[in-house]
């Protein structure tokens, strides 16, 4: 936390949102018979970035999640089982109660044949079949990251595999946690809230308000430079990056507060403009990510 924001309750309290919720769940599991939830983490057409990001979580961290909060049934990157044994495990809870977290978009072209996630009883299982089958039965579906939420990079032009966000093929509400990748706080906080109280309050795009209500621009430490019209002309300058094409003013999420990698830093804190990775339409609608030839007067 930097000095300027250290005393602001908006910052200090919001940094604890996820850990307060997770600790409450763990407490209830230990003392009040709250049952651990079954969690399936399905990776469709993506880059595994969200599960890697989750491993980086700190306060709450991934160890708390798998050891004290949930029965982590399936994730293709992390589990020990492989091949058919892994897929058997995936479908083993199909009749139980489970929460489904999904990263990656769904390729729909040619019945989803361009993404096979494994073999089941000798037949290939497409990502499309897996999400259809497991998605409809799950007690909650959480889209983790921008691809699952809205297609994201997987659906960027020209989108040869005809990828879509998972909501487009499911007939039930999908809670969306866009971000490339999703911050561990957003996922663990949302999961913990679901286990305690059910569906959290969502905005009109089904994003939890507790993390996605504020524009980055409205909580950006460089906002005073914006107001005074002091703009960076190249990367590396410490002022407002509006003229370079910063998407903070159209992107709603609390990453200036939660930050990344054990809360060390975030893009704007490292002098790179926000590229709107948590905004619907990313990446195509957020382009260009950087512009040098803009309204700025040429320096003499």
């Amino acid at each position: 936390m930097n000095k300027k924001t250290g005393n602001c309750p908006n910052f200090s309290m919001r940094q604890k949102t996820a850990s307060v919720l997770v600790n409450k769940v763990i407490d209830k599991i230990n003392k009040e018979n709250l049952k651990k939830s079954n969690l399936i983490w399905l990776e469709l057409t993506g880059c595994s970035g969200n599960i890697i990001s989750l491993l980086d979580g700190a306060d709450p961290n991934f160890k708390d999640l798998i050891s004290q909060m949930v029965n982590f049934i399936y994730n293709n990157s992390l589990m020990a089982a492989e091949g058919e044994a892994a897929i058997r495990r995936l479908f083993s809870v199909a009749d139980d109660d489970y929460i489904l977290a999904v990263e990656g978009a769904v390729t729909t072209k040619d019945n989803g044949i361009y993404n096979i996630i494994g073999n089941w009883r000798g037949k290939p299982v497409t990502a499309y079949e897996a999400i259809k089958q497991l998605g409809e039965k799950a007690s909650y579906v959480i889209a983790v990251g921008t691809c699952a939420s809205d297609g994201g990079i997987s659906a960027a032009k020209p989108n040869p595999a005809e990828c879509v966000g998972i909501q487009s093929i499911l007939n039930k509400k999908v809670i969306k946690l866009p971000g490339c990748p999703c911050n561990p706080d957003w996922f663990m906080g949302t999961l913990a809230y679901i286990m305690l109280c059910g569906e959290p309050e969502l905005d009109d795009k089904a994003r939890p308000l507790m993390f996605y209500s504020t524009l980055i621009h409205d909580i950006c430490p460089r906002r005073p430079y914006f107001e005074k019209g002091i703009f960076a002309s190249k990367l590396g300058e410490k002022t407002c990056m509006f003229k370079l094409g910063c998407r903070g003013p159209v992107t709603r999420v609390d990453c200036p507060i939660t930050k990344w990698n054990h809360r060390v830093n975030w893009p704007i804190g490292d002098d790179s403009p926000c590229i709107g990775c948590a905004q619907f339409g990313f990446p195509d609608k957020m382009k260009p990510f950087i512009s040098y030839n803009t309204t700025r007067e040429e320096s003499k």
Partner: protein
Amino acid sequence: MDEYKIVIKMFNNQKSKINDTIACLYISSKYHPPKNLIKHLGKKILNIKLLQIIQNTTPNFPMFTQAELTTYNGKNGNPAYIAINGVVYDVTNEATWAAATHFGLSAGKDLTNAFASCHAGQPILNKLKIVGKMADE
């Protein structure tokens, strides 16, 4: 017709800022001769001075052709203008239009249809500065 009512309502609500009034009047004048509107308003407003300001300011908006508009694309130090329903707005310093781009759109163009596709019914244009009017070509 409805534009009259909107302007009158603005005055009645005492919320009217001169800029809003000019903007509103200006948009209306695409369909109605401004003089009629001012006459109509005159009955309602006691503040003659404001009326004079409106009368004096309205004709000063420059006209843009499509070709002229393209130079205001926010590049090379040029301001960023866009046209919606015949009115030209300045988005140079509008935060959501960083580097003169917004959700895949770029400045220097008539974006009437694009605007309607995402912002229909939202009162966000009145926060933008009006800088002119599109010429009928």
